[in-house]
């Protein structure tokens, strides 16, 4: 379900095997054991239909980066392709990454505001696997993870959220404060440092120990609703106060997206944000789902995969513009 503010919900669980060291980057035997044990457990659990085992070493660089752009695997999984692998069920938005920072990262992505559903998918997988294998677990500290910031539930629940008006009206400082007060964190998704290209942010829980999964999910969901209300109120108000200025910028973005012949990634993010805002406010005749899919499909590696080449620069930017035009026509 498309949502005017929240693009997607993601939950991931960190799990480790008791008898294998955390960092297997330079230990090919341990890494292979992780992959074999997990694949086996999945098969024995009977939950393996739709899953495919992908070893990063068997994929080319473009394919790997394209998966990361679609957020089916993390960027960190790309760090050591020699040992990393993923059990992927693309149709269900489910992945089990292996040999990232932790032995296992069970991840589920759902579109819109659906943390509960994503969490349940992760829990089902966690339960299915934990009947076959034993994970490192301590009565006091919960699930033991490579980094103490994940100890306990090992769970990170996050929302990908589009906040153009809060950003333009310089309210992100306040937002940061609201979010920090309830033990959550917010950061830009795309771009370097503190910039948030496309006005896209990731809100997630910061603590993992001492709260139940349900408490953490409720907290992230509640903040998601709160930010949604704030953003919607500002959108409403800007229409009343400065309809022309806001409309003008949205239609300009719309014009450029429909007609440009060459578009760099940063420029894309800027116009994409305006168009999604316009679409969410009912001004533009384009589906939110189309725009959300576009966000992944016109990124570098996805375009390169389409072109079956590793070109960058102008040729890539032209392909991006072509893709955008084609998607907006449908």
């Amino acid at each position: 379900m498309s949502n005017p503010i929240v693009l997607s919900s993601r939950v991931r669980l960190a799990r480790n095997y008791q008898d294998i060291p955390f960092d297997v980057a330079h230990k090919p035997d341990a890494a292979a054991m992780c992959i074999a044990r997990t694949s086996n457990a999945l098969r024995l659990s009977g939950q393996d239909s739709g899953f495919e085992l992908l070893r990063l070493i068997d994929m080319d660089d473009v394919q790997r980066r394209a998966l990361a752009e679609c957020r089916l695997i993390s960027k960190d999984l790309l760090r050591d392709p020699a040992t990393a692998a993923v059990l992927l069920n693309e149709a269900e938005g489910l992945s089990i990454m292996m040999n990232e920072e932790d032995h296992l990262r069970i991840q589920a992505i759902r579109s819109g505001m659906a943390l509960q559903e994503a969490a349940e998918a992760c829990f089902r997988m966690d339960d299915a696997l934990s009947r076959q294998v034993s994970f490192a677990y301590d009565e006091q500290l919960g699930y033991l993870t490579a980094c103490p910031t994940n100890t306990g539930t090992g769970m990170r629940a996050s929302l990908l959220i589009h906040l153009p008006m809060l950003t333009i009206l310089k309210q992100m400082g306040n937002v940061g404060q609201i979010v920090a007060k309830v033990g959550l964190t917010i950061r830009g998704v795309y771009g370097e440092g503190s910039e948030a290209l496309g006005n896209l942010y990731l809100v997630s829980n910061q603590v993992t120990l001492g709260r139940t999964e349900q408490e953490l999910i409720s907290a992230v969901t509640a903040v998601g609703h709160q930010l949604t209300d704030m953003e919607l109120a500002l959108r409403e108000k800007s229409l009343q106060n400065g309809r022309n200025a806001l409309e003008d910028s949205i239609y300009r973005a719309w014009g450029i997206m429909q007609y440009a012949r060459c578009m760099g990634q940063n420029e894309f993010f800027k116009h994409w944000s305006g168009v999604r805002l316009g679409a969410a406010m009912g001004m533009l005749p384009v589906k939110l789902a189309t725009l959300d899919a576009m966000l992944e499909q016109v990124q570098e590696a996805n375009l390169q995969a389409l072109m079956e080449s590793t070109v960058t620069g102008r040729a890539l930017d032209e392909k991006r513009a072509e893709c955008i035009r084609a998607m907006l026509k449908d």
Partner: protein
Amino acid sequence: MLCEECKVNEASYTLSVMVGEELTTRHLCGDCMAKMNMNIASGNIKSLLSSILSAITGNDTPAEKQPEVVCPRCRTTLSQFTKTGHLGCPACYEAFHEQLQPMLLQIHGRVQHAGRKPLATEDAQRSRYRQEDLTRQMEQAIAVEDFETAARIRDQLKELAAKEAEA
């Protein structure tokens, strides 16, 4: 008020951290707040951990003067851990227990796990699904102020928990 982290900029954010059951507040400037959020969110936890650790052990003690602790299983040393922010293996939690305890308290505000457990049996799994289901129904009942239904579900949950304790 000056930022407590960099002690240069004016503090404009209040960061609330639970330490044990007490809420302590830190006053930070925008830059340090962003850095803090970034460190936690990106998992680039190195600087965060070392700042927490130095705050706990006291800045005055140089690392090399502290006695070295080694994990008996994976041979990771305490100083390796504080440098990288990553533990070597599950047994490191036991080996570095003394140093980890205050660190976990700083990061999470609590040190007793409250979440899910690995499943032992299929029965336990069924019971847990049932409990999760009931808990959600109860929350929904409370949301629409149907307290009668909520109370009935609460009793069912109690019964299930009692059964689990027996097993």
